[in-house]
């Protein structure tokens, strides 16, 4: 999921850096104030731990192995803001020293793996784990689900970044400048891979490590809570809802800003063509539109309504995003009910 250099155009990667700058500033402020003397070593070891986690191959049923990203695990263990710093640093070192992930795509990679992933995963985990004791079974089931949700959210976002490239940036002849695969390919490819394989690995790793720690040293599981935003105040589910809503709303914004920037750009006459194209691609990502294959290139299938396209597109995106969120929320809710019923059964019997 590490996006290399050359896959994303400047509009996308600059936007990603723009989004990350305030996030980094806020995260380091948070970490500094909560940890003070321990911040530097703890973040450094957290980052090194994330890095090494990515090297553990974990067997999955079916005879293959895969490796986890570990961002949700770090969020659970150290708190989500600490995870933002730790995973960002791990990604920076991978980029600069090991050539894993691009330098220009660094902001985008951080957005996916150091922000979207730990936060969605951590919210899911907190929501499901509730106030259960550190040693309870609910903790690790919650962690596994958190890992699954977090990884898929990150993968979705990465696929989205890939997928909008051909539409956002192409030359006069309509040939893609960067990643040539549109949303209709990028989204299903990433989704299938991550829903069926890597998501499972992430879930297994996150769940089992939390299970191991809850068995052998539950105290370690409580530090994450201590280092994370206070649980008091607004109920957690409200925070979750707010956060997810913000993410869903922000991403089209990320689309719009480059679109506005791009319109005045000297070396791209992206105007109507791109938007039409985007409008044609987007819903496809969610597997709904059968006829999209007609128009891989807008030159062959020009459409009208150029100006209206962006709002329409954003609307589509928000709608599908909201649907996805609802589906996940439903899943979490059902799992939670199932677990707490099992727990009360256990107490009753």
């Amino acid at each position, binding site marked *: 999921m590490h996006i290399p250099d050359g896959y994303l155009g400047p509009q996308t990667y600059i936007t990603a850096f723009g989004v990350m700058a305030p996030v980094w500033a806020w995260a380091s402020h948070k970490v500094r104030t909560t940890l003070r003397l321990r911040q530097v070593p703890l973040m450094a070891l957290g980052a090194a731990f994330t890095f090494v986690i990515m090297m553990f191959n974990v067997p999955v049923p079916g005879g293959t192995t895969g490796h986890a990203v570990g961002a949700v695990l770090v969020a659970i263990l150290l708190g989500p803001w600490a995870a933002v710093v730790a995973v960002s640093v791990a990604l920076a070192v991978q980029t600069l020293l090991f050539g894993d992930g691009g330098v220009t795509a660094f902001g985008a990679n951080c957005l996916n793996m150091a922000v979207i992933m730990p936060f969605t995963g951590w919210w899911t985990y907190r929501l499901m784990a509730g106030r259960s004791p550190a040693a309870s079974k609910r903790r690790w089931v919650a962690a596994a689900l958190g890992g699954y949700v977090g990884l898929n959210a990150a993968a979705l976002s990465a696929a989205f970044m890939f997928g909008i490239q051909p539409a956002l940036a192409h030359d006069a002849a309509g040939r893609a400048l960067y990643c040539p695969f549109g949303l209709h390919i990028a989204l299903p490819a990433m989704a299938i891979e991550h829903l069926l394989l890597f998501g499972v690995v992430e879930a297994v790793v996150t769940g089992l490590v939390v299970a*191991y720690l809850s*068995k*052998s*040293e539950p105290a370690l599981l409580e530090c994450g809570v201590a280092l994370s935003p206070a649980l008091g105040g607004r109920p957690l589910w409200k925070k979750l809802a707010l956060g997810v809503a913000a993410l869903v709303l922000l991403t089209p914004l990320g689309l719009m800003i480059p679109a506005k920037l791009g319109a005045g750009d000297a070396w791209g006459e992206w105007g109507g063509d791109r938007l039409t194209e985007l409008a044609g691609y987007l819903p496809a990502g969610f597997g709904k539109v059968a006829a999209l294959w007609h128009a891989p290139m807008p030159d062959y299938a020009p459409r009208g309504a150029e100006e209206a396209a962006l709002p329409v597109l954003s609307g589509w995106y928000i709608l599908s995003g909201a649907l996805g969120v609802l589906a996940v929320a439903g899943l979490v809710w059902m799992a939670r009910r199932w677990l707490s019923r099992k727990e009360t059964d256990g107490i009753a019997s």
Partner: protein
Amino acid sequence: MDKVFDFRGVSFAYPGREPSLREATFEVAGGERLAILGANGSGKSTLLHLMDGLYFAQSGEVRAFGQRLTPESVERPPFGPLFRRRAGFLFQNSDAQLFCPSVEEELAFGPLQMGWKEEEILRRVGDTLGLLGIAHLRDRPPHGLSSGEKKKVALASLLILSPVVLLLDEPTAGLDPRSQGILLELLDDLHGMGGLTLVTATHDLELLPHISDRVLVLGEDHRIAADLPTERALGDTGLLLSVNLIHAHRHRHGAMVHSHPHQHTRTHDHAHGEGKDHLH
């Protein structure tokens, strides 16, 4: 089963480094007590990893129980599992060796893989813990144990499979004299019961007489510098100086300084004009 290990011109280098072991040639007979002696970084741990089929020679040939050790042979049944059961390896760092959430699971790790029956395993776990006198630790997580207890648990996790060869990497490092003594006695007892081959890596000269009859001395050039009976090796100050295990030692006695080759296993008393007798 006469020769347990047979090394012929074995060299090994970590990726991207200079060789950590050069052209080692030696044999280990069944029931022998061999010590591998060398300064820090001379390649003792590397040699033990090669003996346990965890690393593989880049040139030369390693044979164990008559069979060549290769990445394939140690994985393929019947030799692979048999070899792993016969050879037990006590790591230099027992923290690394203990990776299960409780002592009981730690001990059950090996037997579980051999498909023993559950009751049989639990019985053996109890027996082994009893043998080492650590039955009270059964349900504790290994990381909360003291360093001496960790060593014992690590040893127990090897002994439960009744190995015929024990590879010990600095078994007494970091232990206080009493825990050291207890461990040495235990090893002595195990060897006394017969048949066990003991290979111990150490840089502690004082330990040698307790754990070995024969010594393999590794030089700082990562070659075998000598292969001698223990008593002769300890007596050979020139050899020990040449592999940098001892050095010309200066002593301050009050205001006086004098120097002579020094070896920490020996006590030598000497009087100075104004001073009292010293023990070093």
